[in-house]
């Protein structure tokens, strides 16, 4: 199978081949179902594989092509959906026992949009329960493993989506990013993962974790594929009041614009910060040099206020989560554990249905919002958020794009940080600022550490500058050292690991 390998990326190549009638969507689906059959026993990226639905959707695409109609820019491209995105009639679990058996009566806006663009939903992917975690170990249905080293975590919370794309089980995936849940697993699995500007992509149908921070974004093996998927899912949606009143993005058209004259700031806190692995630091320095070599002006930037980001995030996100997760009370859907009265039933249901990390955050958030503590915790955290936005804005007065690491370290071993929530939380230190500010950011693979584990370089941009972000990301991708094939890799990857680096 060679159609999956294209100059710009497997999704673009597949869609072009399907639209031209060179390859059938049915064959593409079968090939990816075979990839899942071959890899997912070891990786456990998928909670459910939608074989029948995918075959039916592919057949519909093929009929459109046969009838001379255009199925859309993602024609026949398999896509994996994080299992916190609502899919009509298909279980949506958020990797939680509490939602077991629940089938949403509606599709998330992003699911509608990828389908309308011709994509074929191939499965729902594993995540940390309700997207709370950085390793996908907090799934009620067992962890996902990193394709580059199955003894290690894929990152989280969108670990299933990252592993599916990295291993070749799907060319594209959707994830959600509240504090780094797209970018961090993308970095650890060696794929591209992007968090859009808050409000750029509709949250309708994304099961909420922390509403003011959550954004849906793309996973892909190349920058061009990620930009294409973002172009498809972005744009205003009447069903989300926080959706920005803007037309659909058109980032794919800017990928060849280069970085000549673009001002890059190397963000000291995300390179030299405490706990930063020296090998990761080294790769980021090389990335900066590569951008300078491509014509960008590169300078050092420091935003010391970022040191308050992590504590602020761990008050705001749990506070919102404590409210968002109140509805799982056993009354209307999902798990119910009976009790002598409704209060006891609520308590028993929640005790049985939620895992320890979710309970921890509900407790944290409830406390942060309690009478007498609100000002000291939630109120103070909101002030820090404002402070960080101001600090980043002034940095963007001097540079166009900020560069730093996506994660302080490469993938860690399963079980390493399970018993140390604070160590686990520190994994998000580099990604959280963009969520607090509502700014877009992308993680692009840039080389490996000594063990061959991928390193992610993170590019951050001011609000709504996704076009510039992808433009710079494309240059960074072109300059990146080749990444070896993952240890668990499907035939869909061809022989070169990342498809982006080669011509078909």
């Amino acid at each position: 199978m060679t159609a999956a390998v294209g100059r710009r990326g497997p999704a673009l190549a597949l869609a072009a081949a399907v639209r031209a009638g060179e390859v059938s969507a049915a064959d593409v689906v079968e090939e990816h179902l075979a990839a899942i059959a071959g890899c997912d026993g070891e990786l456990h990226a998928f909670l459910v594989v939608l074989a029948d639905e995918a075959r039916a959707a592919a057949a519909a695409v093929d009929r459109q092509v046969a009838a001379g109609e255009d199925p859309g820019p993602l024609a026949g491209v398999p896509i994996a959906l994080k299992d916190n995105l609502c899919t009509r009639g298909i279980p949506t679990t958020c990797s939680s026992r509490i939602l077991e058996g629940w089938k949403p009566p509606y599709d998330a806006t992003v699911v509608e949009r990828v389908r309308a663009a011709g994509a074929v939903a191939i499965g729902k992917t594993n995540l940390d329960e309700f997207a709370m975690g950085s390793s996908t170990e907090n799934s009620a249905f067992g962890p996902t493993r990193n394709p580059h080293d199955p003894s290690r975590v894929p990152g989280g919370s969108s670990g299933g989506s990252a592993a599916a794309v990295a291993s070749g089980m799907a060319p594209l995936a959707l994830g959600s990013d509240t504090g780094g849940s797209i970018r961090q697993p993308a970095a650890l699995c060696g794929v591209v993962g992007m968090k859009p500007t808050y409000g750029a992509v509709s949250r309708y149908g994304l099961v909420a974790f922390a509403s003011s921070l959550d954004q849906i974004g793309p996973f892909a093996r190349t920058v061009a594929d990620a930009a294409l998927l973002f172009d498809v899912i972005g744009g205003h949606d009447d069903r989300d009041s926080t959706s920005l009143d803007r037309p659909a993005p058109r980032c794919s058209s800017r990928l060849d614009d280069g970085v000549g004259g673009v001002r890059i700031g190397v963000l000291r806190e995300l390179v030299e910060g405490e706990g930063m692995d020296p090998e990761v630091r080294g790769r980021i320095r090389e990335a900066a040099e590569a951008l300078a070599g491509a014509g960008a002006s590169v300078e050092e930037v420091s935003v010391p206020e970022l040191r308050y980001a992590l504590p602020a995030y761990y008050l705001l996100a749990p506070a919102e989560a404590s409210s968002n997760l109140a509805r799982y009370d056993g009354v209307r859907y999902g798990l119910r554990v009976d009790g002598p009265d409704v209060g006891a039933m609520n308590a028993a249901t929640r005790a049985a249905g939620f895992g320890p990390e979710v309970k921890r955050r509900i407790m944290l958030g409830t406390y942060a919002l309690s009478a007498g503590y609100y000002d000291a915790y939630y109120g103070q955290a909101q002030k820090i958020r404002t402070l960080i936005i101001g600090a980043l804005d002034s940095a963007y007065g001097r540079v166009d794009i900020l560069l730093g690491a996506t994660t302080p370290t490469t993938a860690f071993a399963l079980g390493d940080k399970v018993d140390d929530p604070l160590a686990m939380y520190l994994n998000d230190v580099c990604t959280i600022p963009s969520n607090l500010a509502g700014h877009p950011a992308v993680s692009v693979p840039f080389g490996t550490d000594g063990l061959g584990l991928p390193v992610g370089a993170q590019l951050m941009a001011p609000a709504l500058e996704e076009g510039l972000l992808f433009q710079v990301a494309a240059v960074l991708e072109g300059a990146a050292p080749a990444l070896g094939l993952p240890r668990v890799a499907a035939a869909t990857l061809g022989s070169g690991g990342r498809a982006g680096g080669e011509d078909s």
Partner: protein
Amino acid sequence: MSGTWEPVIGLEVHCELKTATKLFCGCRNAFGDEPNTNVCPVCLGLPGSLPVLNEGAVELAMRIGTALHCEIRPSVFHRKNYFYPDMPKDYQVSQYDAPINVGGRLELPDGSTVGIERAHLEEDTGKTGHIGGEGGRIHGAAHSLVDYNRAGVPLVEIVSRPDIFSAAQARLYAGELRAILVASGSSDGRMEEGSMRVDANVSVRPAGRAELGTRCEIKNLNSLHSLARAIEHEIGRQVALIESGERVVQQTRHWDEDQGRTVTLRSKEEAFDYRYFPEPDLVPLSPSADWVADVARSMGPMPADRRRKLTELLGEAAGGRTDQIVGVVEKDLEGLVEAAVAAGIGPALALARTANEASANPDGAREVDPISYVTILRLEQEGLLSATQAKSVLATLLDHGKESAALVAKLGEKGTPAEIAARLGFEALGDDSTARLVSDAVEANPGEWARYLEGEAKLAGFFTGIVMKASKGKANGKVVAAELERLKG
């Protein structure tokens, strides 16, 4: 109640807005539909669903604010967090420290003014029914059923200042507020259907003291009648407590209409910590100055303005007739009074017929042809119809509503009022005819006549009734009485 105690009352009124759809989704806002038929992912709070604010609800809230002379401000929605099975998200989206309407006032028919603290937007909850318990109570119930049709229906909560000092004034306030809600087109104001729900905060203090006593909140007030009764009872309970040397404990109390008393629902210590925080799924609400001005322009005069205008029109005749004025304005019928007075009908008669006969058939009265209406009043004023006849023909006229003009018009415009009355069949009987009917009645009932002659004066009514029946109400009662006296000799 002892005269040395002054009650202080504040009312919190929840009213359902009369929008076509709910506050945050497109589901029908309707009362009495089959349970759980007006629901969708948003108002069921399904995972992943998001609220979108209904502009129509905002407009109605602004109408209420305008009618109550509030300042309309930029506002923010908050989440009020507590677990309750009829609340799909286990939080209620409401406005907290930045409500849309702030600081207004309501003028009552008795001339007093009550300050308005705020009037904010929020969503309603569903309704829980208990199956297997006594009379639908939760106690002993085998299970409960929840109807989410009402969940997400837009509400405005109107909070008064503690400016109310008696149960009667509280009742007046609630009645006047209802009139304003209806007049502004914001709400039905139906307490029985729950589209207007009143909670009362009641405290007592020694008369003349400035600081407030400890208050209790009374819930479950389903009519203006029970509102007044409950407040009266609660004032008595608090005074009795204090006078017996005990303290009033701050708590929420439930009005038991059957028992006629309030009972403890929960104490202050049991109060919820609602953990309010700004609702991140909605953006702040900032109605433009143009929108606020448009709403103000589109509003008709409020009941207090209309009462004032009617009172001025009536002049001296308004004295002591506040209830009739309130009633006419409440039923939206002052146009008939104005038409009658303009046509030369005495203000007292115009008000009386409108407050009584027209108000008895308000739907017909709103459609009746005013010229025809005034014609009948003129016939009465000129003595060509007795009061009884005038009331009777008005009833017919009002029953015809829209066709009333045709009814009178087909009689022809020409002729004196007497001729018109004759054609209507309502001309007064001449005194001779009346006398003949009286003597007929006397002859037909010799036994009663004998007792009447022996001094059983109340039998005058017996004979009058027979004459009225025979004349189909056309006889003049005074003439009948005079004829009876004459025959008696």
